[in-house]
């Protein structure tokens, strides 16, 4: 009997297997439970393929999307169109990573109470302004491109429209359209596209020169329309003649900047591009933007010069460049942009955004000097009368894209005003000159944006 009794210990092996397995599962439950609940198809959270975690509003509380049943979008067509790339469509062509990211907070899920307190979901409040979005959509007209503004003190993304777009409540025949109206319609150009920057990239070179070249302020440049490198040359459309540094930027003189790039050298320029992070992706609220490009490996001297002018192989992402503008406006340190300001589930607040300030990318003095020069651009070139109430600092760009298309028009900058800490970025494809195309768009939008901020 003793022998048999002692052999009964073998049952322990099974007991250990069972308890071990259950313990392993409980561990998994606490680690992965939130993922399980939020996975597409999760019965209490999803309506078919779409998240059903509640409603999304703009910064003022205007309803943008109710995810229950078959998704109800905003009441006006313009607002629906302007918000499409942030809220997604019904069929999964356009995703809404920010909503998926906060689905857990909207549902009020936690591993103790599960989804018990979930009743149709919570509310996610975006930082975007419905009013500003529709105004931006209108200002973009028929153009493709993107226009964005953010508060460089708090990081709130106030406006970010991507065109072309469509009304999710009245989906056009996108597949059958052949005139190019809906080319790239599923892409959020603000976050997912890259553009050849053109002259707005001169801001990077300018900042590098301010940091690196001690005598840059006393230098003068003579533009003859060409700055030659043997058989090749950097050219300007106009002959600018004698220029100081301020005017070189304001007139966007390629020859002057070629000379500056020469002085800096390829290595140094590359170092500053890296330091200012202008080609890095930005991540916020589950969105990771496209990264840019700056590559001068094996590049000839003229190619390096064009790289410093925003051509050659340069590519920038709108959101990243907007953040860079924010850094300059904010004295050398950017407040990272974000989209979701707060999430509530039931009566409890489950998420509230906090401003995150990135690391310093340039000395404050350099940032101040760049601000002054950018304001000078407006005075000298774009016309202060376009922005009657505030001090705007900016730089336009006209990026040649080749082929039969017109140039892409760019305009980037910010408002130097404590009451209106707005950085902006405008990119319009296949349009022409940055100054001609983008400045009117901005002058139309800035008053709306200020109005929105005034109302709060």
């Amino acid at each position, binding site marked *: 009997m003793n022998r048999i009794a002692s052999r009964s210990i073998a049952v*322990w092996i099974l007991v250990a297997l069972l308890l071990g397995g259950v313990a392993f599962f409980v561990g998994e439950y606490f680690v992965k439970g939130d993922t399980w609940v939020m996975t597409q198809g999760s019965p209490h959270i999803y309506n078919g393929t779409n998240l059903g975690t509640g409603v999304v509003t703009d910064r003022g509380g205007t309803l943008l999307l109710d995810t229950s049943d078959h998704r109800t979008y905003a009441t006006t067509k313009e607002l629906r169109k302007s918000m499409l790339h942030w809220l997604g469509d019904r069929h999964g062509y356009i995703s809404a990573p920010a909503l998926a990211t906060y689905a857990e907070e909207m549902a009020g899920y936690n591993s103790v109470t599960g*989804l018990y307190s979930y009743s149709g979901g919570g509310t996610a409040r975006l930082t975007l302004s419905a009013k500003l979005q529709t105004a931006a959509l209108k200002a973009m007209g028929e153009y493709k491109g993107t226009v964005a503004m953010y508060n460089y003190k708090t990081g709130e993304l106030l406006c970010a429209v991507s065109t072309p777009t469509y009304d999710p409540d009245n989906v056009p025949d996108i597949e059958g359209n052949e005139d190019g109206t809906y080319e790239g319609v599923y892409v959020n150009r603000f976050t997912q596209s890259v553009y050849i920057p053109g002259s707005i990239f001169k801001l990077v070179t300018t900042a590098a020169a301010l940091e690196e070249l001690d005598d840059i302020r006393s230098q003068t440049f003579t533009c003859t329309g060409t700055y030659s490198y043997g058989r090749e040359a950097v050219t300007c459309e106009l002959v600018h003649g004698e220029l100081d540094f301020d005017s070189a930027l304001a007139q966007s003189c390629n020859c002057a900047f070629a000379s500056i790039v020469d002085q800096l050298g390829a290595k140094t320029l590359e170092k500053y591009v890296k330091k200012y992070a202008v080609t890095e992706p930005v991540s916020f609220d589950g969105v990771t933007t496209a990264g840019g490009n700056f590559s001068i490996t094996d590049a000839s001297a003229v190619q390096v010069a064009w790289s410093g002018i925003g051509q050659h192989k340069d590519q920038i992402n709108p959101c990243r460049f907007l953040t860079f503008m924010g850094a300059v406006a904010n004295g050398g340190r950017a407040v990272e942009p974000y989209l979701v300001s707060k999430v509530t589930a039931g009566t409890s607040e489950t998420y509230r955004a906090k401003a995150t300030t990135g690391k310093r990318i340039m000395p404050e003095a350099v940032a101040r000097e760049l601000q002054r020069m950018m304001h000078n651009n407006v005075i000298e070139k774009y016309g202060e009368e376009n922005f009657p109430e505030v001090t705007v600092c900016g730089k336009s760009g006209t990026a040649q894209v080749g082929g039969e298309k017109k140039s892409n028009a760019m305009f980037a900058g910010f408002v130097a005003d404590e009451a209106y800490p707005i950085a902006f970025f405008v990119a319009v494809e296949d349009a022409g000159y940055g100054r001609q195309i983008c400045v009117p768009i901005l002058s139309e939008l800035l008053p709306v944006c200020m109005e929105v901020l005034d109302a709060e």
Partner: protein
Amino acid sequence: MSDFIQTLTGAQETFVNVYLAVMRFAAPILALILLWRCCKPLLTFRREPEIWAWLCLSNGDKLPITHWENTIGRHKRCDILIDFPTVSRNHAVLTRYDDGSWSITDTHSKDGVTVNGKKVRICALNEGDVISIGGVEMQLQPITHRQEVRLSQLRTRSSGMENVTNLLLLSIFQALTCIGFLMGGNLENATPILFGFGGIMLIQWLLLIFCFIIRRPAFEVETVAFFLCTMGMAAIATVKPGETVKQLVAMVMGIAVFLTVGWSMRDLERAKKMRYVAAVLGIALLGVTLVFGREYYGAKNWLVIGPLSIQPSELSKVCFVYVGASTMDRLLNKRNLISFIAYTLGVCGCLALMNDFGTALIFFCAFLMIAYLRSGSVGTIGLAVTALGFAGVIAVKIAPHALRRFASWRHIWEDPFGAGFQQTRALMCIASGGLFGMGIGKGWLKNVFAADSDIVFATLAEEWGLIMAVLPVLLIVVLALFAMRCSSVSRSSFYTIGACTASTVLLVQTIFNVLGTVDVLPLTGVTFPFVSNGGSSMICAWGLLAFIKAADTRQNASFAVRLGRKGGGGDE
């Protein structure tokens, strides 16, 4: 007026919500109190060795005999160790019977056993007989009647009143659950739900009364089983409310099997005879399925008789445990072992033809446990060979078909709408339920296939919370630990082998059911004992419980142990 009705409806809604909200916490608290009260005596009862006789050696040494079945020999794990060169390693077995008489059996020793000078193979012993084992002489001195009475009084008693209180608590739990279901808006199914929970309540009280009548008031093991059945009923009530009565009928049949198996084991001589009946029945059930069975999902394991569909392989599990158990004197007998191996091969053949992977796996684990418990020096090799053969059959015959199901193991999220559908939904719903559940009847998983059987764990977790879902698992563990605790003071190896093998089957089924649901193991479609919806499975679980109950040696506890004789509380 309409305002008034509206207010009333509103008030009712609020009340229902409050009730269900309170139940989320009340249920686990009540269950924990109840189960703590049940499990504590099972896991902590005293296990002091009982002395049934003394063996007086010629040199004046007196060796205590602490079991009903005792091996005598030179082997250091023998119950009575006589370290003398002429004594075989396993020389003989000394057995006590229900009536207090003793016998000695020679277990193929080299020098044999003599009683009063006569060489014997098996011989009844009287007081004063001189036994010689390998030349060592000794006399058996059984304890006196008065000592026996004293002994039985020392044994832990199971308190009858405690068990009544436990059952009252369980009844409260069942009533609250039932009300929860009715209030949750399940009114169209009110009748079957009332029948389901009311039926369990009625059956458990009837069984308790019966146990009191036969003066075996220990009811912890049964209370645990009834709790498990209640949780199973809760799953059925939400998934297939129409089947509550069917499950109830299965429960009654299960309890009948439980009592029958228990009764058959009360007298070991009877049990030995019943073993043959069980053997024939076990293989016959499989045979009938093979001939008349119907194939579902690739396995031919269903027998459809009119409106009834049963899985006979479930019932043959109980028979297999019965056949595998054996008393010590036979355990060391080669013939007994060989016939068991032959029997196993027969069962194995039937299972191979039936293509039922889950059942084959459970039989295999049960076989391994029996083999391990039985195999001393004699049978290890034969058993190992059989094991190998069994494994071979599974690998060659059944696995290719089953492997397709295993392809998605640990990869369920890669195919959430195909092979991984059941398990991904199960995990989503478990997580949705949190620790305290979405509320009775508020689950979604009922829409998924086999929500009340194969993935019942997830159904419980979704509606009752993870705590209440893990509780049944722990209860199966408690039953197994209880069986193990009993084995050290067990009267006969028959009970120990029976209880340990029954626990093995319960544990293995729970392992494959629960861990299969949550993708820790592949999903095999094995049922959760007592909990899963399925009549055959329910009957099998109760049948197995009889073996665990029989191992209970506490005074007045088990129907398998006769009460103390004459004056020791009176014979029944």
